């Protein structure tokens, strides 16, 4: 990493911050922010992917989230970095990114997508083999990406990013009752589309 100064360009490593860097207030603040924020990058990127449903938009949103997070780091209360960053990300996406008019596409990673015809995932629990095999990770991802935003957000935050209800209410700015009813509606929608429980019907 390079910090440009008026006299020279000082190359420093971001992981092992030298004492000289830590004495510069701005650099020290940036170092503290990176230490606190970067461990949550995958969670922020995941949320961005599901909010924007577009690779380039997701990267742009994450970048802006980190830049805004650094700007506001002095006001961070210390009450959970992950929900704090996710709130910044969500506010940015709502305020700055125009809704996509194109057809819904699933989030961009192919991490869980094998070659055509291969199993999407290997479930660890024998009890869920049938629904998981039938659905497949790819289909589940697409299905969640296609949910209306007010249902998509709670299911991503809870079942994918695995935030607590308390943290989710902070991210979404809603009460626990509202969160619970949205989560129930989201899971009902997923359940209906995956047709879980229908085989038990007479």
């Amino acid at each position, binding site marked *: 990493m390079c910090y440009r100064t008026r006299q020279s360009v000082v190359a420093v490593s*971001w992981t092992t911050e030298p004492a000289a860097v830590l004495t510069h207030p701005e650099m020290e603040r940036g170092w503290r922010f990176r230490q606190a924020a970067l461990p949550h990058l995958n969670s922020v990127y995941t949320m961005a992917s599901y909010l924007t449903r577009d690779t380039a938009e997701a990267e742009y949103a994450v970048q802006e989230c*980190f830049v805004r997070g650094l700007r506001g780091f002095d006001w961070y209360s210390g009450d959970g970095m992950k929900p704090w960053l996710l709130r910044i990300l969500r506010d940015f996406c709502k305020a700055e990114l125009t809704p996509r008019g194109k057809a819904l596409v699933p989030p961009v990673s192919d991490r869980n997508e094998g070659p055509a015809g291969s199993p999407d*995932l290997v479930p660890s629990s024998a009890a869920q083999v049938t629904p*998981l095999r039938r659905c497949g990770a790819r289909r589940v991802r697409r299905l969640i990406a296609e949910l209306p935003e007010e249902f998509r957000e709670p299911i991503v935050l809870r079942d994918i990013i695995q935030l607590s209800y308390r943290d989710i209410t902070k991210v979404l700015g809603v009460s626990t009752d509202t969160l619970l009813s949205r989560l129930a509606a989201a899971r009902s929608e997923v359940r209906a589309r995956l047709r*879980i429980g229908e085989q038990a019907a007479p």
Partner: protein
Amino acid sequence: MNCSQTEILIHALLDNELATSHAIDVEAHLRTCAACSEELAAFEITRKVVVQADLMEFAPTSLRKRLQLVPSPIVGATAPVVAAANSRGLGRRSFAPGLLLGVAVSAAVAATILLASSLPWIIK
């Protein structure tokens, strides 16, 4: 506790987010209501399908590297990131207004110099 209340609260029960007193009430209702028990079982499978699909995304390495450059104190905290975004065609801040302003200022300075140099001739 009735079925309509249980319908919502079973999700908090599944997520281990229900206060003990409420959990006792919901579980008591589930023991006596087959329909709600079936709902619980179906939503448990639904939740596990989503959780076990493991849909967390990994941030691209290039993005992670760019974020490690935040901040750059002299050129501004956003400089490396915005520059990277612009290079990928992601930047939202157009430089066209700045370019036009620069051209306008240059033209004004050139006109002033020309006028000042020709002023003695004009006066004569």
